[in-house]
C-alpha cells in the first residue's frame, strides 16, 4: 500500500516536473511534421521529375534550370523586387509619418487611430476587389473625373502592362501603413519623456527632437516592421489575384502566383516546388539575419 502510494506520488511529481514539455509536445510534433516535414518534402519535389502527381525519380537541378529559363519567372522576380522595395519603403514612410502626427496629443486620436488601422482588418481579397473597382478606367477614378468634366484625366495603370504592378503597391500600402503606424505609435509612446523634456529645455525644435532623439531610439521597431512587411511582400498572393489576376497577360505575376499556376493549373509540380524553394530562400535571407541579431542581442542584454 505504502509502496504504491509512493510510486503514485513519484508519478505525479514527475508529471509536474515535465508538465510544460508534455503540454508543448503535441504542437511541437505537429509543427515539426506539418511545417518542417512539408518543407523537406517540397525540397525533395524540386529535385524530382514530378509533373501531375508527385514521383520520386531524381532529376537533379533540372527543375531549377527550367525555372530560371522561363520568361515568366523573371517577370515574377522583377515584380517582387519592384513591389517589395516600394511597398516596404512607402509603408514605412507613411506609417511613420502618421504615427508622428497622431503623437501630437490631438483630439479624437482614438477614432483616427481606428480609421488608419482599419484597413489591416480587411482581407487582401477585399482590398484587391475594392481597388480594382477604384482604379478601373471605365468604372472608377478615371471615369469619375471624366464625368466631372476633366476629360483629359488619365489613370490607366491597372490595364497597362508596364504599370499594373504599381497598382498592387498602392493597394498593399493602403492596407499595411496603418499597421506600421500602430507599431510606431506604440514605440513613440514608450520613449522616455524626461529626455524629450530635457531637449525642450535646451531649446531643440520639434523636428530636431524627432530626428535626433526619438526616431533613433525606436530603431528596433524599424527592423521588426521591415521584417513583417518583407515577408508579407514575398508571400503576396491574394491581393494580386483579386486586383489584377496577374495581368494584363502575366505582367503583374509575383512568385506566389507563379507557383500556384505551375503547381495547380499546369501540372508542373516540380517547377512549382522549385519556385516555392526560391521563395523560402528569399524569406530565409530576411529572417535569419534578423533572428541572429535578435538572439545575439538577447544574450548581450541578459
Amino acid at each position, binding site marked *: 500500500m505504502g509502496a504504491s502510494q509512493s510510486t503514485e506520488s513519484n508519478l505525479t511529481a514527475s508529471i509536474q516536473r515535465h508538465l510544460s514539455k508534455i503540454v508543448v509536445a503535441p504542437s511541437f510534433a505537429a509543427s515539426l511534421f506539418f511545417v518542417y516535414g512539408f518543407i523537406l518534402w517540397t525540397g525533395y519535389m524540386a529535385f524530382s521529375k514530378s509533373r501531375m502527381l508527385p514521383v520520386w525519380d531524381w532529376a537533379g537541378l533540372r527543375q531549377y534550370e527550367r525555372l530560371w529559363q522561363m520568361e515568366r519567372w523573371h517577370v515574377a522576380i522583377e515584380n517582387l523586387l519592384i513591389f517589395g522595395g516600394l511597398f516596404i519603403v512607402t509603408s514605412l514612410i507613411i506609417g511613420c509619418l502618421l504615427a508622428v502626427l497622431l503623437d501630437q496629443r490631438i483630439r479624437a486620436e482614438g477614432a483616427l487611430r481606428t480609421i488608419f488601422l482599419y484597413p489591416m482588418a480587411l482581407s487582401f481579397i477585399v482590398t484587391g476587389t475594392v481597388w*480594382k473597382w477604384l482604379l478601373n478606367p*471605365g468604372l472608377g477614378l478615371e471615369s469619375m473625373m471624366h464625368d466631372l468634366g476633366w476629360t483629359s484625366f488619365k489613370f490607366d495603370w491597372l490595364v497597362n502592362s508596364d504599370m499594373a504592378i504599381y497598382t498592387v503597391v498602392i493597394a498593399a500600402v493602403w492596407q499595411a501603413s496603418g499597421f506600421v503606424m500602430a507599431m510606431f505609435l506604440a514605440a513613440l509612446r514608450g520613449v522616455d519623456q524626461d529626455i524629450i523634456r530635457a531637449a525642450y529645455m535646451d531649446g531643440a525644435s520639434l523636428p530636431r527632437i524627432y530626428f535626433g532623439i526619438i526616431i533613433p531610439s525606436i530603431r528596433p521597431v524599424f527592423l521588426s516592421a521591415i521584417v513583417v512587411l518583407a515577408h508579407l511582400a514575398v508571400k503576396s498572393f491574394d491581393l494580386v489575384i483579386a486586383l489584377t489576376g496577374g*495581368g494584363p*497577360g502575366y505582367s503583374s505575376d509575383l512568385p506566389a502566383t507563379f507557383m500556384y*499556376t505551375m503547381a495547380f493549373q499546369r501540372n*508542373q509540380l516540380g517547377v512549382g516546388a522549385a519556385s516555392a524553394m526560391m521563395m523560402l530562400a528569399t524569406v530565409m535571407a530576411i529572417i535569419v539575419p534578423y533572428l541572429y541579431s535578435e538572439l545575439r542581442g538577447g544574450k548581450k542584454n541578459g
Partner: protein
Amino acid sequence: MYLRKTILATGVAFSALATASFAHAEPTAEVLHWWTSGGEAKAVASLKEDFEANGGTWVDSPVAGGAGDAAMTVLRSRVLSGDAPAAVQLKGPAIQEWAEQGALADLNDVAAAEGWDDVIPAAIQDVMKYKGDYVAVPVNVHRVDWIWANPTLLAKVGADSAPTTWDEFNALADKLQAAGITPVAHGGQPWQDATVFETVVLGLGGPEFFQSALVDLDEDALNSDTMKAVFDQMRKIRGYVDADFPGRDWNLATAMVMNGEAAMQIMGDWAKGEFLAAGKVPGKDFICAATPSENGYLFNVDSFAMFNVSGDDKVEGQKLLAELIVGEKFQETFNLLKGSIPARSGVSLDKFDDCAKKSEADLQAAQEAGGFLPSMAHGMALRGHLAGAIVDVVTAHFNSDMSSDEAVSRLVEAVELAKD
C-alpha cells in the same frame, strides 16, 4: 503501405461479394464535377435523375471554384489516398495523363454494347481513348471559333452579315471604328487571348497548319511566316478592342455586344447562353457566325473520365453512368441546358436553336474536309504545361508592344522548354 492497401482492397472486394450474394448489388457512382452554376447545375441534375430512375445511387461531389483547379486538387489527393471517385469531370489530354498513371478503368464492354465507335466522331474518340480503350465518355461539343455580332451595329456601317475572311474582318472593323463603334468586345484574360489566337491560326493557316503548329508542335510550323502573320493579325485585333479590356470576364464582353457597346465578340458557344438567357433570338437580335476559316471547326468537348473503383456496385454504377451519358436522351436534355450540341450522332436537333443547328452542320462539313480540330486554348489539343507555355507567349504579346518576330521566337523557345 502498398500491402495494406491491397489487404484493404481485398477486404472491400470480399464484403462487396458478401453483400452481392444477399441482394443484387445496387449501382452506385460518386461523381466529382465543378458544374455548380445555373444551367450547369441543372444539366448535372438531369443526369442524376436519369441515373436514379435506372435504379442507381448517385453520390454528388461538387467542388466549386477556380475553373476546376480546386476539383483537380481534390482529385489528386483522393487518388493518392487510394479512394478515387467513380466518375470525374475531366477533359482533353488530361484524360491521357491520368490513364498513364493507371488510374482509369476501361469501358470497352459498354462501348461495344452501345456501338460508340459508330456514333462518336473519330477525333473525339481519340480524346476519350487511351491506347485503344475507352476510358472516358463525352457529354457535349462546344464550338470555339464563333463570332457573336450585333446586327444593328453592323447595319450602321452597311454590313448585313459577319465577315467571312480576315481581310473582310479588318475592313469591317476599320469601318466600325471610323463610325465610333468599338469593333471587338474582348475580355483580357490569358485564356480569352488564346481563344482569339487559335481562331486566327485556324483562319490564316488552315486546318493542316493548325494541326502541325498547335497540336503536333512542329517547330517549322511554329517558326513560320504564317505564324508571324498570325501575330500581326493579333496586333490588329488588339487595336480594335476598347482600352479597359484587361481582366474583364468573358460574359461581360458578351454583354457589351448585347447592349450595343461593341459590335463583335470572338468566343465559344457558351456565349450563346448569355444571349438566350436575356431573351434574345438568334438571327434577329444577334448573329452567330463561324470565324473566318475554310471548313474549320475547333471543338471543346466536356467529358467524364472513369476511375478505377473496387466493389461490384461501384463498377456497375460506373457502367450504367457511362451508358446513360452517351445515350440519346441525356445528350439531348443536357445540351439543351448547356448550350452545346450532342457529342454523338443520331440525336434529333428539333428542339435546338439555329446556332446549334449551324454548329452541327458545320461539324459534319468540317469532318469531311478534315478541319475538325481540338481547341488548344481550352485544353483539348495539348497537355496543360505545353498549352500553358503557348498561352503565356500569346498573352504577353497581346498585352505589350512585342513585335511579331519576337513573339514567334519566344513561342519556339517556350514550347522547346516545356517539351523536355
